């Protein structure tokens, strides 16, 4: 088996995550789907690292994890404060931009 299959898997997971972002209304689930997309990217990086024979891909994946952690912290804080003020975790309820 060729390690390229990992890339196909990553692409599939990424597409699934993106679709999830688009169809789910619960903010937390949307956030989870974003994490899924990030993980798919990480998998692709790791696979590339193996394909190219150096560790740079793994480094990028590592940084992605760090940034994802920071993002989760802030994002969940936003969700919590939104829930506090609006008593809802639905993305569609936060539609003040609508005319």
């Amino acid at each position, binding site marked *: *088996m*060729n*390690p*390229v*299959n*990992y890339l*196909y*898997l990553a*692409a*599939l*997971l*990424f597409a*699934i*995550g*993106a*679709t*999830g972002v*688009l*169809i*789910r*209304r*619960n903010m*937390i*689930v949307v956030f*989870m*789907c974003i994490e*899924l997309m990030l*993980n798919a990217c*990480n998998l692709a990086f*790791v*696979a590339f*690292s*193996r*394909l190219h*024979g*150096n*560790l*740079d891909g*793994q*480094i990028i*994946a*590592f*940084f992605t*994890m*760090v*940034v*994802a*952690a*920071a993002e*989760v*912290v*802030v994002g*969940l*804080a*936003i*969700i*919590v*404060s939104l829930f506090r003020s609006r008593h809802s*975790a639905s993305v*569609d309820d936060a539609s003040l931009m609508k005319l």
Partner: protein
Amino acid sequence: MTSVAAYTTSTGEAFQFWVLGTVAVIGALSTILMRRAVHSALCLAGTMIILAVFYLANGAYFLGIVQVVVYTGAIMMLFLFVVMLVGVTAADSLKETLRGQRWLAALCGLGFAVLLFAGIGNAAVTDFNGLAKANEGGNVEGLAALIFTKYVFAFEITGALLITATVGAMVLTHRERTERAKTQRERAEQRVREGKHLPPLPAPGVYARHNAVDIAGLLPDGTPAELTVNGTLRERGQIRDVSHEALADLRALEQRSADRLERPDLRRTDIGREGEGTGERAGRTEEASK
């Protein structure tokens, strides 16, 4: 072991890929399709663990461990905390409110997948180098050497980013008190003025029989006192009602004393007043006494 795993894809790895890959895709699909956020989070955690295995299989040992520890262990648990905070039982309705949104999303996802597949297929990567050489000094050491030399700036900046994110999260969730906190005296006065329940709330539980918080205490006539149960449980409807047992006991006691004192008219009127529900309770009471 390092060199062997990195060089070629063994049949074992291929088997592992197809099995675990299928599971990972199923987990991902469950993540976006489960109605409850808790289930989604658990499915995602499963997918992530499988990804950790894939990392290990690709020679990224450090990342595999970090994936399990940081992602699955920390981040996903954070998600679960928030899910609990927001409401674990709340389930999304599956009815789509935006017209055409679901179809568009599916179309986009599918098209995107096709495009990515096409792109990867075009990339023509038939042979690969493997990580044996890069990992020969040890994967962690190799990563450390890169992080602290080539990527030291990025590393430092991500550190700053983490600090900022921490502060940001605290700022976001911190609630600023906008008015002076009321003293105990003021609160007591307010309560009297509003005519609310003045003394401490009665304790839950039924003396000498049940001691749990979800069991309402009984009033002198044997009916449950809702006030004794926590408001949250009351709202969720999770009160265990044991009043019928007590009532049945009471009735049995009265029956016995009536038998002894030969006052049949009392029982008849009693039964007539209680109606059909009493029979069932009486049966239960007999079982319990056995």
